[in-house]
């Protein structure tokens, strides 16, 4: 990952990248700025502190959490390869109402340790959004006050938005084994 760091620091970086790199030098895995949308891909370790920093720093002021969701990248080989075969990516959309800027934070999560700290104590809105991500993808949010299914029934089995879950019928397909396919 160190080559990517050198590559990206040369050009003039947006303030948020500079500050994050200064504060958490190891956090950022990748940066992209496509279609006017700034995205940082960061490590799961220390994500809670990073998000707290993004919200509370007086120059960044990302005070508004617009969305929390996840993507199952198991069918997109090129993305998988980039992030050490992390099957899921948790995606946060942040917004600064003061500076009118948006930031997308993506966190790769491996299927083996399918959990990530909950942001509910930073933004109350994260509560249900994380419950939905848990319901749809089976990602556990640590220290979440009320991690239950939200859209599907409580006794439902499976996580419908996973790529191995069929459009019709129930349950993940048995023939689809991500772990075995990508050893």
């Amino acid at each position, binding site marked *: 990952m160190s080559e990517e760091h050198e590559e990206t620091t040369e050009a003039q970086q947006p303030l948020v990248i500079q500050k994050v790199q200064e504060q958490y030098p190891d956090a950022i895995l990748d940066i992209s700025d*496509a*279609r006017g*949308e700034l*995205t940082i891909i960061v490590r799961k370790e220390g994500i809670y502190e990073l998000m707290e920093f993004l919200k509370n720093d007086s120059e960044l002021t990302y*005070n*508004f*959490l*617009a*969305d929390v*969701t996840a*993507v*199952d990248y198991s*069918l*997109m080989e090129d993305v998988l390869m980039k992030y050490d075969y992390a099957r899921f990516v948790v*995606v946060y*959309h942040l917004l600064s*109402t003061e500076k*009118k800027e*948006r930031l*997308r934070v993506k966190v790769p999560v491996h299927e083996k340790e399918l959990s990530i700290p909950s942001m509910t104590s930073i*933004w*109350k*809105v994260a*509560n*249900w*959004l994380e419950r*939905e991500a848990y319901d*749809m993808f089976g990602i556990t949010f640590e220290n979440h006050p009320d991690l239950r*299914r*939200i*859209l*599907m*029934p409580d006794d439902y089995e499976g996580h*419908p*938005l996973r790529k191995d*879950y069929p*459009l019709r019928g129930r349950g993940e397909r048995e023939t689809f084994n991500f772990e075995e396919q990508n050893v």
Partner: protein
Amino acid sequence: MHTDSNRVPGEPMTLNFGPQHPATHGTLRIVVELDGETVLKATPHLGYLHTGFEKLGEHQDYNQFIVVTDRMNYLSPLSNNFGYVLAVEKLLDIQVPERCEYIRVILAELSRIADHMVWLGMGALDLGAFTVMLYGFEEREKLYSIFEKTTGARLTTSYTRVGGLMRDIYDGFEEDVRAFLNSFPKALKEVHALLTRNRIWMDRTKGVGAVSAEDAIDYGFTGPCLRASGVDWDLRKAEPYSSYEDFDFDVPVGANGDAYDRYLVRMEEMIQSGRIVQQALDNLPDGPINVDDYKISLPTKEDAYGNIEGLIHHFKIIMDGHGVQPPAGEVYGATESPNGELGFYIVSDGSGKAYRIRIRPPSFIHFQAVPHMIEGGMVSDIVAVLGSLNIIAGELDR
């Protein structure tokens, strides 16, 4: 909570509010624990209308999904169509013709008025003001006639297309809309006379379900609900899209964040939407409505029937897997829908179907704050709070 020392504490009672309660406008359910008439605890349950829109989006091509967006906020389907295609166009990195942008703005603002009119009528009906519903629905009916003439449908409009519109506006559209713009402020005036200084209405809504500005941001409020709490935030001003920067309009902001302020903000928003529509009609540019690229929008009928190239392009767009194919990447497109920020997060793998479509629905996020707003209040306030938030179950569960 109770300071009355003579009061004998009783067993709390559990009440099921919904899923088929008339004031829920759709199927949602709140389990409330009551002490007398005071709400001790409220637990919302949802998912009754969950139909897997996001999963469907992974199996339909980009134009097919427009049909699904109709069914989200079914009070203003045109706004959903609009927000979705804007996100796809951002992904494709294309700019639609100005005429198309203006028509989209006109219809989005008219559907904002239609949405607020229904909200007004139903919200007032829930609190016992029957007359207001008739005023609200009469105005909406006029709008729905215009929508029906424009799109061919009253509710499932599916009017936008990636890179343009289904068809141009009809002859006489301008007169119809201008006639509406002249008539609806009168109806609003009557509603103001019926409600704004009405003792009962004020008692039922003032101070009910109040949310502070900090809490509103913490709970992710957007749209009229956020502005009622005193935060001046409107995506049409903050991140102008689709030529909104061309129009002169005000953003009404409340002070107390209670049901009464949400009512006043929405009432004023309708007037402002009227101003936008007026300006857009005055300056409506001529020209094409679709992008000049047959890889994205359908060829004209003359081309499709008249020459082989047009026919092939027509065929390619319609055939499964050959249609609109955005480059690989991801995009988050947000618009100011009548209820607040409606966001579409689309991940593309470069094929004709989205790899993932995530919808950020304002109702889902507003509904989360309902326990915060009603706990400690009276049981009858639940109706006032739900009404003032305009929770749409189709958008809530998707």
